[in-house]
């Protein structure tokens, strides 16, 4: 397959509009909140206003007395624990016994309308007993009592300590060693669609009792949702149907079970009616599951020639109140130190820590982004120390694939060298760098990401993806895939692959996706696995069904099956000009009588003609059905054993069948008076194996770089004692068109030996490099090395003033952005010190209140 050139394809590699785009531009497409069913009630959730407290009593009698309120659901209605990871079942639908963050779920009102439900929330009386709360992970790790989860002493969810090679010897060989602390603040997905779930039970037709449950939800993982619902509701999975309608963006925020998905089902059961819950934007921020605040203590050694001898990283993640994907996140942070450059010795200590804040989870570039920011910044600094160009030092440390890295990651296709060449050339790196004048600079960085995890989180030997294809007498091709299109275009991807293999036009293809009743299991849209895994399953399913069509066509055309070509809706003998058969449009052949093909006349016609040289797609399909009956094909994909990585504890996270690569150059201008950073342009080259749909690949690459840019410059959670201060799209500062620079993307095709048509990941790998490319460009522009992101004006300005020896103005809550020593807390308290209860005497963060005066 790798020998195929671009022009050997008829559908692959062509810019194709997403097959669901018309529904999106006309408003016809239905997202979860656009759905309603007869008798549907509305659910609204009561959230905790305390960061850590025991629930002494919940009295809903006043709410229940309100006209229009149907029921109120509380934790004891469904106390079974669940969580996305088998090792992290620490959540319940609604809080049982205690709440763990401001925003934790306490009760759910089900009412006839949203306004009634909202009014009823005010009437639920909850008696709490406040507990000490932890907001800084380094404080939280010191806790001796009142743990956030009883079973997690010292509030440490999980810690890992990995040594690969001989790091001590590596550092001893180095000519220059740098150590530094980097902090990346917390960001969130903020997908445009707020989460929504509609849950409805139906009567069992035999028993007349409450029967099957149908859940339509904004999810990236319908099959995991089905599984977790079965645990909480104590129902067999076969009695639960999960349907994913259109999803308005995920970025990881819908890649696990979000509280409302379980709550809606529990509420529907108790209310004995369909219930829809839609989050407000503020609730979306509180549900969160975004990228954790991360402290990275990083040490890197290089020789004078630029080769890296060893890396040691200690990473502490501020995980929030529940495990979520935390164990995986902290493992990715260490594992993906490998597979980008050739690093012979790696030491990694990772700590995932619980704090009394909304749970962090998986977000685009899961686990790699913040560590990559630290690593690429430090590499830039090291290049400076040994007087080496930042591009050259990266070229010096390239892997030599095929290879297995010191931490057990198998690398086959590797387009990084070409990515670096492309962005260096396009940005005119050599000519322009250092010649841009005062306040303007260029920075370079690289990153990579997995094309799906080689081992699934549910530890099973089942295929990761399965796809079925049905072709019927109408010549329509229906693909049944469990892949969840969340806007990244997976429906279009499977349609393209099937059309290419079957040699038919795209308009024959219909995709039925992500419905647990109709489609075979696919583990979901996360870790950039869908093109690689579901794409491969589609390829196999299409080849399975194609075999039978080809066999039948070979009989009809009296040739060997190898000589049958299917392409562009035609089936013809090798060597025959692919011209449409004349009779294709003749009514006697494909004629319809009240919607039915006259199969008899087709057969008669064929008999009359004798052996043929070419046939239409329908004719070939009909021939195959005449031969062997109904046409169905199936294909599945499980990653090969060789890609599954090392045997060490935690070694299952990081290994992937293939890695994508990215190199970027950022051109920035820094205003030395205000500290404002303007990104003029970013050049981004991404190795996606093969671009199955170049418009989509470019859209994914640009989108990831842009999201990295948001984290680099302005997006950040602002906290005061566990209360999120900026839970809205404007205050969170999601970049608008006026803040978004030109991003030019370049596709590099390394043709992976195992990817479908050579394709691999395109949607995540480019995010991480954007942040260090910008910080390195800021250094190039104004000579300050920022080690805390985002590089917001107050951080940049305070660094510039310190460098210039200007009078200090306190703007960063006493955290130096060039040498951040701790998490930056934003000032005092809104409710602890003010209206609310006094902070608990043992609260470790109380100790700091005398040292750090409120700055805001």
């Amino acid at each position, binding site marked *: 397959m790798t020998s195929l050139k671009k022009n050997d394809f008829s559908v692959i590699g062509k810019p194709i509009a997403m097959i669901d785009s018309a*529904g999106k*531009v*006309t408003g016809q497409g239905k*997202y979860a*909140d656009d759905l309603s069913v007869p008798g549907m009630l509305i659910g609204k959730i009561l959230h905790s206003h305390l960061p850590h407290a025991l629930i002494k009593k919940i009295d809903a009698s006043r709410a229940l007395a309100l006209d229009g309120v149907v029921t109120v659901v509380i934790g004891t209605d469904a106390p079974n624990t669940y969580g996305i990871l088998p090792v992290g079942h620490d959540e319940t639908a609604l809080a049982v016994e205690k709440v763990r963050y401001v925003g934790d779920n306490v009760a759910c009102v089900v009412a006839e309308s949203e306004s009634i439900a909202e009014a009823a929330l005010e009437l639920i009386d909850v008696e709490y007993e406040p507990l000490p709360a932890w907001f800084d992970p380094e404080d939280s790790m010191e806790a001796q009592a009142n743990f956030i989860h009883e079973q997690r002493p010292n509030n440490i969810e999980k810690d890992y300590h990995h040594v690969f090679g001989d790091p001590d010897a590596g550092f001893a060989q180095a000519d220059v060693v740098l150590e530094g602390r980097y902090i990346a603040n917390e960001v969130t997905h903020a997908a445009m669609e707020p989460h929504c779930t509609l849950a409805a039970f139906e009567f069992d037709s035999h028993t007349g009792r409450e029967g099957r449950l149908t859940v339509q939800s904004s999810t990236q993982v319908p099959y995991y949702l089905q599984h977790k619902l079965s645990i909480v509701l104590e129902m067999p999975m076969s009695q639960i149907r999960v349907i994913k309608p259109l999803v308005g963006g995920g970025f990881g925020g819908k890649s696990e079970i979000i509280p409302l998905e379980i709550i809606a089902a529990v509420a529907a059961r108790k209310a004995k009616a369909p219930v829809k819950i*839609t989050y407000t934007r503020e609730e979306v921020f509180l549900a969160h599951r975004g990228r954790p605040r991360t402290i990275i203590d990083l040490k890197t050694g290089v020789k004078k020639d630029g080769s890296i001898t060893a890396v040691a990283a200690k990473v502490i993640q501020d995980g929030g109140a529940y495990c979520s994907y935390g164990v995986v996140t902290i493992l990715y942070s260490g594992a993906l130190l490998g597979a980008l450059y050739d690093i012979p010795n790696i030491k990694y200590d990772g700590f995932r820590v619980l704090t009394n804040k909304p749970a962090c989870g998986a977000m685009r570039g899961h686990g790699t982004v913040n560590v990559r920011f630290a690593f690429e910044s430090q590499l830039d600094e090291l290049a400076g120390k040994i007087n080496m160009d930042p591009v050259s030092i990266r070229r010096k440390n390239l892997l030599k694939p095929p290879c297995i890295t010191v931490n057990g990651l198998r690398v086959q296709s590797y387009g990084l060298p070409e990515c670096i060449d492309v962005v260096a050339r396009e940005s005119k790196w050599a000519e322009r760098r250092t010649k841009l004048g005062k306040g303007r600079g260029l920075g370079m960085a690289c990153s990579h990401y997995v094309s799906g995890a080689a081992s699934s989180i549910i530890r099973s030997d089942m295929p990761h993806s399965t796809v079925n294809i049905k072709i019927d007498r109408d010549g329509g091709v229906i693909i049944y895939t469990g892949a969840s299109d969340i806007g990244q275009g997976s429906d279009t991807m499977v349609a393209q692959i099937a059309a290419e293999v079957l040699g038919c036009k795209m308009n024959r293809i219909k995709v039925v996706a992500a419905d647990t009743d109709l489609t075979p299991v696919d583990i979901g849209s996360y870790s950039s696995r869908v093109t690689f895994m579901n794409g491969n399953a589609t390829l196999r399913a299409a080849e399975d069904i194609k075999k039978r069509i080809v066999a039948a066509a070979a009989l009809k055309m009296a040739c060997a099956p190898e000589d049958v070509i299917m392409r562009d809706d035609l089936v013809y003998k090798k060597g025959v000009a692919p011209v449409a058969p004349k009779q294709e449009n003749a009514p006697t052949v494909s004629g319809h009588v009240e919607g039915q093909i006259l199969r008899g006349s087709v057969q008669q016609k064929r008999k009359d003609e004798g052996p043929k040289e070419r046939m239409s797609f329908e004719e070939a399909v009909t021939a195959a059905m005449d031969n062997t009956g109904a046409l169905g094909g199936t294909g599945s994909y499980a990653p090969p054993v060789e890609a599954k990585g090392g045997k060490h504890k935690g070694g299952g996270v990081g290994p992937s069948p293939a890695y994508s690569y990215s190199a970027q150059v950022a051109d920035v201008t820094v205003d030395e008076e205000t500290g404002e950073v303007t990104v003029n342009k970013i050049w981004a080259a991404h190795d996606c194996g093969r671009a199955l749909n170049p418009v989509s690949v470019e859209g994914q690459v640009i989108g990831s770089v842009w999201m990295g840019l948001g984290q680099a410059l302005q997006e950040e959670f602002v906290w005061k004692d566990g209360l999120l201060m900026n839970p809205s*799209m404007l205050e969170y500062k999601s970049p608008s*068109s006026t803040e978004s620079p030109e991003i030019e993307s370049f596709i590099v095709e390394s043709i992976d030996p195992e990817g479908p048509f050579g394709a691999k990941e395109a949607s995540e790998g480019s995010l991480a490099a954007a942040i260090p490319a910008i910080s390195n460009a800021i250094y190039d522009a104004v000579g300050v090395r920022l080690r805390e992101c985002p590089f917001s004006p107050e951080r940049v300005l305070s660094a510039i003033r310190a460098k210039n020896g200007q009078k200090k103005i306190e703007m960063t809550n006493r955290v130096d952005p060039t040498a951040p020593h701790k998490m930056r807390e934003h000032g005092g308290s809104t409710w602890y010190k003010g209206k609310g209860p006094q902070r608990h005497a043992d609260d470790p963060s109380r100790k700091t209140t005398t040292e750090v005066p409120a700055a805001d």
Partner: protein
Amino acid sequence: MKKELIELKVNGRRHEVAIEPSKLLLDTLREDLGLTGSKRGCDDSSCGACTIQVDGVPMLSCTMVAASYQCDNGGNEITTVEGVAEHGALAAIQKAYGDWGGSQCGYCTPGFMMTVRALLERNPEPSDEEIRHSLSGNLCRCTGYTQMYQAIKAAIQAEQKGMAAGK
């Protein structure tokens, strides 16, 4: 709250609906008229996903009270994304957003359709800067806006070609 009967003119058709006087226009369109194309993304008019046009002017329906936009003689004509397709075919801007990747998850797209349509009605040949500025009230988390600019330019070209052909 007691409901009141109001009359709205949406996409050229009149509708009588009984709603609470405080009901927002977005909720009325979505829940009472079944026009779910306009989306709720933020609740506080910061994201633009609910953008509609009232007499051609783009407005944010998530913070408008429906009862204030009752149709009167020649005024308060509401257009939603469902009213953009012309004569049963996609408008040039709709086709271009699909072809050029201007829409990924599509949730913000209806809002962008209404904003861009209003821009092009007002200014058929906007400069790059004018396009960038006019989109700044609509947020998108997928595209980084780059492919939207390509889509808008392609739509303008298609319109001009169409007009030239019509002459």
